[in-house]
């Protein structure tokens, strides 16, 4: 059985998904305000990192990296409902790209696995 990352199509799949995903996030009134004023180029690179992790691809993130990266946002009120919204947008993105439901669930589970680190708890 090949890995989730290989089944999804590897880096090409991340590249195909990243702008679609970022557009959905920016259009989502529940979470868009967390991205006000950010530099879009560096943000898309971060989104790519996140998707690579969620797709089961190569990454060296530690829990501490996740905590540090989101601390400022937690201080601004980032909570479970926002993580839910991000995962929801991720699911829609994958379905738009024709990814089967089994893989959509696996990706959602991986994304969900960093929830506590992201929320600094």
């Amino acid at each position, binding site marked *: 059985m090949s890995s989730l990352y290989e089944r999804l199509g590897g880096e090409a799949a991340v590249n195909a998904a990243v702008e679609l995903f970022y557009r959905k996030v920016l259009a989502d009134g529940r979470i868009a305000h967390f991205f006000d004023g950010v530099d879009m*180029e560096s943000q898309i690179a971060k989104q790519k*990192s996140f998707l690579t992790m969620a797709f089961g691809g190569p990454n*060296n993130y530690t829990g501490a990296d996740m905590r540090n990266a989101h601390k400022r946002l937690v201080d601004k009120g980032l909570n479970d409902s926002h993580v839910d919204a991000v995962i929801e947008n991720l699911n829609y993105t994958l379905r738009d790209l024709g990814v089967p439901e089994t893989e959509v669930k696996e990706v959602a589970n991986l994304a969900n696995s960093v929830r506590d680190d992201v929320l600094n708890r």
Partner: protein
Amino acid sequence: MTLVTHEGRAVDVAPGETVLEALLRAGVNAPHSCRAGNCQSCMHRAIDGAPPPQSQSGLTDAQKAMGYFLPCICRPTTPLTILRPDDLGARFEAVVRAIDPLNEDIVRLRVEADGFAYRPGQFIELSAGEDLKRHYSLASHPEEDPFLEMHIRLHQDGRMSRHLAEKLRAGDTLHVAGPSGSCFYEGVHEDQPMLLIGAGTGLAPIYGVLRDALRKGHRGQIRLYHGARSSKGLYLSEELQALSNVRDNVDYRPCAFDPSAPHGGDVAATALEAEQSVSDAAIFLCGGENLVKRLKRELFMRGASLKNIRSDAFTPAR
């Protein structure tokens, strides 16, 4: 062993080792995060030597052309001289050739800087002294002009403005460093539609890009929007109008603030109203920070790829 020179210091990269690992081992405080070539936190620029193509994965065509690469996935086999992304490298002497008014408050500064390589539309740091440095975009073309050309708005209390207006004369020496920025034609496909939007002296890089596109035989449609506070601010408009009359694929759309103009003459609103289909376009945005941010986001949301949007946002001098 492969030699990497980082800010004048030699660092050996062991076989199989990445440039990031070698820098960290040598005690260089190099920024990094994912160590997998995704987050781009560690990005550096090679000013001598070619980084392996794999180390430029995920970067834009413009970044690749400028030598940017990701040290965390870079295993070099030939020597490299690398700089932090914000390091401008060597300074060059620049002799003032002419300072001429383009309109009431914008002047055209031309300086001669032998050996200074750049792409039209990039920006440089111009210094008239250790504590008097500003960034300006280049409207000149290195293969057509024996000088660097900048368009500079004169601010009443600006130090550089006063220096330019009151002290500087032809023959005086300044210094330039850089170039920086990804506003240049290289990497655009010759059949791609181009959307150029500049406000105020943001026309300078746009004009440089336009000249380079035409010189390189660009065939796709080019629409150029220039915004100004009043019609007097629309400098170079005769040249651009003439160009758009003789070239089938060039369309010049000046927008000046005027209550009777459509959208009140707001260049961003005018361009967004007219440009509904942008997903294939090569887009260049130059002007104030708010304008550039607004246009970048709007155009991205309606389908433009960030890879195809190049921008320079002007920030006021402190």
